[in-house]
């Protein structure tokens, strides 16, 4: 049985989205409200179990009376608010933001983004062949996971997950400033010299594949990664008595990665190094 925490009853706010009257519980964001009426707004940095950072600015919408566009993922809905999700102004910003992102990093492993680029007619190439981008080789300094900075959009989700919102390890942060800002551990050291405890919770939240399992990275490099062919099986971790749910991603009868359901009340998507990476014994057939 999955427990669903109900919380205390909340007041309903009335406002409009694209002219349609909407009722949403107090405290919900514009994005929550949009999704509750079946309208989705694209977003990259929003995470279902993390406080929205609103850094990617893909989800901007127009709110009557606001000087600038507002991020739907973090702006709380207010009674009487008039939200427009699909105006020319909002679409223009979304298109440019997608172009800026796609021109500066590799979004090839980011789910859904190809569709958005098409929908908003974004043309990242128009900044010219000399447009600055990271173009950095992936960092492979341990056997568990790979950091591919060329795919990093600086959404801050891994920082929040490693820090006070999930793991409390504080091994990673944003360093530097502006276009040179990047995710790093202390002193920009290899991961093995850092405070990292290899829980892999940062991989769990990474929206672009900049952080990935070494297994996935190797299979992608070899051209054998085949997501549609994978099955997912959720089970209970056998290492200790906490009862974390593991979702085993299996391809060709081999576990290729492990995630955890975010709506699970035990883990909320979190795992430790054993649950996340300690699966080799399962398939050691010698």
């Amino acid at each position: 049985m999955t427990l669903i925490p109900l919380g205390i009853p909340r007041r309903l706010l009335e406002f409009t989205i694209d002219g349609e009257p909407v009722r949403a519980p107090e405290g919900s964001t514009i994005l929550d409200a949009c999704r509750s009426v079946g309208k989705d707004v694209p977003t990259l940095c929003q995470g279902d179990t993390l406080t929205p950072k609103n850094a990617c600015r893909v989800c901007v919408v127009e709110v009557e009376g606001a000087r600038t566009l507002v991020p739907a993922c973090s702006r709380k809905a207010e009674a009487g608010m008039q939200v427009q999700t699909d105006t020319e102004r909002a679409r223009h910003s979304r298109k440019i933001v997608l172009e800026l992102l796609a021109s500066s990093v590799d979004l090839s492993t980011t789910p859904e983004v190809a569709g958005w680029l098409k929908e908003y007619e974004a043309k990242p190439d128009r900044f010219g062949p000399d447009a600055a981008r990271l173009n950095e080789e992936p960092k492979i300094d341990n056997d568990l996971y790979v950091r591919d900075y060329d795919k990093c959009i600086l959404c801050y989700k891994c920082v929040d997950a490693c820090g006070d919102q999930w793991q409390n390890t504080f091994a990673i942060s944003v360093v530097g400033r502006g276009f040179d800002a990047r995710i790093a551990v202390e002193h920009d050291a290899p991961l093995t010299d850092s405070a990292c405890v290899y829980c892999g919770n940062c991989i769990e939240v990474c929206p672009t594949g900049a952080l990935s399992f070494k297994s996935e990275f190797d299979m992608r490099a070899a051209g054998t990664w085949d997501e549609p062919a994978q099955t997912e099986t959720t089970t209970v971790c056998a290492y200790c008595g906490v009862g974390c749910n593991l979702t085993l991603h299996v391809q060709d009868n081999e576990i290729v990665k492990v995630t955890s359901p975010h709506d699970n009340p035990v883990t909320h998507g979190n795992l430790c190094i054993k649950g996340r990476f300690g699966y080799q014994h399962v398939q050691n057939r010698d």
Partner: protein
Amino acid sequence: MDLHFGDSKPTDEERAAIDALLGPPESSWEGADRSDADLRWARGGREARERRDLLLPGLHAVNDRIGWISEGALDYLCRRLTVPPAEAYGVATFYAMFSMKPRPATVLHVCTDLACAAAGASELCAGVEARLGLGSGVAVERSPCLGLCERAPAALAIKAGDPVRTAVSAPATVERAVLAASSPDSAPEEPSAALAVPQAAEAGREELVLLSRVGVVDPASLDDYRAHGGYTALRQAFAIGPAGVIREVTDAGLVGRGGAAFPTGRKWQATASQPDHPHYLVCNADESEPGTFKDRVVMEGDPYSLVEAMTIAGYAVGAHKGYLYLRGEYPRALERMEHAIGQARARGLLGDDVLGQGYAFDIEIRRGAGAYICGEETALFNSIEGYRGEPRSKPPFPVEKGLFGKPTAENNVETLVNVLPILTMGAQAYAAIGTGKSTGPKLFCVSGSVDRPGIYELPFGATLGELLDLAGVRKRLRAVLLGGAAGGFVRPDELDIPLTFEGTREAGTTLGSGVVLAFDDTVPLPRLLLRIAEFFRDESCGQCVPCRVGTVRQEEALHRIVGRTGADAAPDIALLREVGRAMKDASICGLGQTAWNAVESAIDRLGAYE
């Protein structure tokens, strides 16, 4: 949290620098040698974490003494404050004045920004770099605006040690800058702050309200300040009470002078009425807008006025602690403010019982470390708290959740010092100055192609032409940049624009923080625009995509069209417009929202690429 520290150890000197700020460590949990007792108890936790705001002062302590911040020093500081090293590394790398790599003890910052560029900064840089090559023991760094625009070109030498030595060279020649860098102690003293107020020497100071004491009082003497009318405003404040002060400020129509023009009375009222406590007052003295130097001159020439004004503001909003966030590039302002605050404290004008009125208030100075973005109010809070100087999203607004998550009123230096005349002359008399909607006197920082650059005080409503006449504008004026890099250009035929918030808005431009940078036709406009783009690319905090990537794409496009006009430039100008519009609409804070303004105005109003 389970903190992990590497094996790097601080040197004795690094340890001494940090201990001088924080005191000696109390246990091995904080980095002392381990004793038997340490094995039986754990220290740190909440108490230590609450000192996180000492991270920035700690980084300054090391950087000041050693000249750069080593792994061992950073780890030791982290142990002392229970800060994760990764986060502290993220903070230290955020600021331009800190180095995480070994560098010479002396760094010479040579300003390359707008006013200095127009006064020959590139030749100065080349000359200085030729003289101070490898092995000279001096690192030469090209710097954004140093806030010495009235004496452009400018250089600032900082020599690490105990104590740190600084020397300002402005106007700088290659020889003088090299001398300042090689022996900061023997460099000639900076000219008096009064020289930055040419108006006083020319027409007398009767009409000056805000600048009336600059050059008249001894900035080191509290008695002199009192002899010139100091502390009458605070007495008046105590006479009418906090609500009375807010009423006077509201009736006077005072609005913020930092650029956003928000009504100060409303901000104070909103802060004062918050049920959450404590309340804080923050004075934003981080003016880093290229072309701005007014706050520096006020703090150097009349430091007690700011102490008094902060005390009044603190009293009005119900704060017992005020933070003065002073930009790191202002050594003399820092020294004068430190002295003034110390004197005021010694004389009972700050402390537990201000003026014997039973009101407790004190001021703490926090030094910035080279980040334009920290002038944004919420980024400034993060910076004080020991986090990266990234702006927060609003709402919630600072009056509700500001510094340390508590109700906070933040005002810049010029806004605060306006409170003194409001209380001494009364709201009505104050509101009679200026226009109906923009009341009071206003400070303008005039530099560039003028004979008498400096700060000018005029009632709101004077025209741009009148101001430039006062400053002795030179012939063949090509353009005027109003409001600094985040402002906009106007043409020489638009000099009748009234200098008011509503007047500039009507003319499709902005008053911003009061910057007036005049450029004659010897200044190559495309090069100037490129410098503005470079500035924003360098100063973007990198948090949101439109600003982080947009400022780079903007600079790239401007590089492509340097030397091009008409149809050759048109596709890139169209691209700039599209990107600029998204930056204005979708960036988190004012930096990204205004980064395209000056370039846009140069294209539209000056026909920069026609």
